[in-house]
């Protein structure tokens, strides 16, 4: 019993150091940069390129927040996190915002003390499998050994899927994404399960990408959204509207190329959005040009998507659910007024 007490005390110190802060916006302004938690190992979402520059959809989302807060998209530092460490890092205050292909779920939004903002990628879980096994459908996977990352909704979804279909599975759970992929390519598992976007990324780095297929079944809904600590509404608004600004810009036809001309636009919606007519910035506690800065320095959602994961990248993912609502997708922004 004494020991348990000791542990709680030790831990409390850690917890204390993390949460005794005024508001994230003030903290961030005081230190002069945003600390963002990202994947670190996921091509197209969060991974440094060969020059050490961070690239990816999630990385650009964090950069958009920096552009909104500081008017400079480079005032952000990245902390690579595993699926297991990401929530603790946010809860303890080690990072200010979590942009790490993270599925919004009820329990994470409530019992885990997180608040999710606008989804920046709609995903779903699938299976990657070597062609030579001759499997055509996930329904044929009875008895398969499945490689899976620990501490993800993936681990739960796959167990649920095998339970509902009455099949048996044998999980191999390895914490590091790269190590897991290595074990899968070497044949330790029959299939790898993860979000479809991650499977595309894993296949892109396979020794021979053509030898693998993604099975047609998508077994779950995975709305990937940035997250902040629960209870800091001001900061949540800022992160939320930074993501929405990119979507709204695409709706309004504003890109990083034409944003300067758009400043002269007569359209009152665009004038309000870019801060020519003030109001939005003050409401958020930011500079009136926050949206302009995001679009100028990072781009609109379509640009960010195509640059990182789109059809012309090694991932080659079509917009699908991530198209604007006007194009049959789910990306929809409330009005900026």
């Amino acid at each position: 019993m004494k020991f348990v007490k000791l542990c709680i005390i030790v831990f409390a110190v850690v917890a204390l150091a993390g949460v005794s802060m005024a508001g994230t916006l003030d903290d961030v302004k005081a230190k002069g940069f945003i600390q963002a938690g990202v994947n670190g190992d996921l091509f197209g979402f969060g991974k440094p390129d060969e020059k050490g520059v961070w690239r990816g959809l999630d990385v650009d989302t964090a950069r958009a927040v920096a552009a909104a807060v500081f008017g400079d998209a480079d005032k952000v530092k990245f902390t690579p996190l595993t699926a297991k460490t990401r929530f603790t890092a946010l809860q303890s205050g080690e990072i200010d915002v979590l942009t790490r292909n993270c599925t919004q779920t009820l329990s994470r939004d409530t019992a885990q003390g997180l608040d999710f903002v606008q989804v920046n990628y709609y995903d779903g879980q699938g299976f990657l499998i070597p062609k030579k096994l001759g499997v055509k459908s996930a329904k044929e996977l009875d008895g398969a050994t499945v490689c899976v990352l620990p501490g993800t909704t993936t681990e739960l979804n796959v167990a649920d899927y095998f339970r509902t279909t009455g099949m048996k599975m044998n999980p191999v759970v390895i914490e590091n994404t790269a190590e897991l992929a290595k074990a899968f390519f070497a044949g330790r598992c029959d299939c790898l399960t993860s979000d479809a976007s991650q499977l595309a990324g894993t296949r892109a780095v396979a020794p021979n990408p053509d030898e693998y297929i993604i099975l047609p079944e998508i077994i779950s809904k995975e709305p990937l959204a940035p997250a902040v600590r629960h209870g800091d509404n001001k900061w949540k608004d800022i992160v939320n509207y930074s993501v929405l600004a990119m979507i709204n810009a695409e709706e309004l036809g504003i890109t990083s190329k034409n944003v300067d001309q758009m400043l002269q636009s007569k359209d009152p919606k665009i004038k309000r959005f870019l801060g020519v007519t003030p109001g939005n910035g003050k409401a958020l506690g930011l500079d009136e040009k926050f949206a302009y800065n995001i679009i100028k320095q990072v781009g609109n959602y379509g640009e960010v998507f195509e640059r990182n994961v789109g059809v012309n990248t090694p991932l080659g993912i079509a917009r699908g659910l991530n198209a604007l609502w006007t194009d049959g997708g789910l990306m929809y922004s409330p009005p900026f007024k």
Partner: protein
Amino acid sequence: MQIKHTETEGHGARSTTFFWHDPDKRSIVYQIGVTLLVGLLGYYLISNTLSNLERQSIATGFGFVEKESAFEIGESLISYSAADSYGRALVVGVLNTLIVSFIGIVLTLFLGTLLGVARLSTNWLVSRLAAVYIEVFQDIPILLQLFFWYAFFYEVLPSPRQALHPFAGIFLCNRGLIFGIPEYHSAFKIMGFAFVAGCGIIYFIRRWARERQNKTGEPFPVFTVSAGILFGLPLLIWLMAGAPSAMNVPVLKGFNFKGGVSITPEFAALLLGLVFYTAAFVAEVVRAGIQSVSRGQTEAAMAIGLKPGQVLSLVILPQALRVIIPPLTSQLLNLTKNSSLAVAIGYPDFVSVAGTTINQTGQAIEGVVLIMAVYLCFSLATSAFMNWYNKKIKLVER
């Protein structure tokens, strides 16, 4: 204290010493003060943590162990499925850690002693080889060794459909080593009892043999007789039951083998990594222990006509063990603790299962407290046993 009392009494009822002039009472006051301070600090930290957790609306308490875990575990000694509770999942993790640590400790003791003795061998080649082994395995971080062994297993071994098949009933592939086991038969239970009974008989034989040797000086071949009883009794029962030899043989079905027992690459890699790494340290401990016994002891023992085996077991080891046991204990504890690196190579040990539980429930504090408590229990149990053993083999100085 005693003296002071008589002193005050000697002076009559009037007491002139104030309690802060009395070092004994003063120290009691200090101790109460420090305890209060630590208690207050603890209270402050705990209540602060709880209120912070509540403010962030993070769930607290150990209620989650009853809830359905909903995740699968790769290997388990007891039956487990995703429909079982977090509590059962954690027990599976504890058992997985225990089995790998236990087998690891046994193998490490064996290999480490062998290497330690080999290091002191008068044979140049043997001692050099042992030295090279010790230096290499001691100097490479254990995590790298684990990655090496794991990659070795999954890169080198073929897929289940091309599994190596050296003997009937044994398959070797990147799903692990799968082998047949005897089909359950009621005679096996009796064989188990026979084995336990054999252990009891041996205990008495040893006592009798020692007494006889003390009296008459005549030795008794205890080892051969013990081995005979241990294996002979169960064998006899097995033959009496009609030698049941039905086997549960693994068969390739779909993706993997069904039936038999399998040792997974994760388990094997973790076990090999831990054993090879820790054995290098144990070897050095054993060598140091043996070298701590002066050469004169060996010479004296040989001079009174003991055989080399008896020199080791009767003269050298009892003195060497005294030096070996304490550092050996810490090496065995290291092995147990290092087994938590399992998560890197996908073996579902306690830390791995607890990690998934933490992530699923979001209750990091409770989870980490559990992890610490479990490892503390393992370590305290190991060192309690080793301390008991250390006391038992302590030199009796006359």
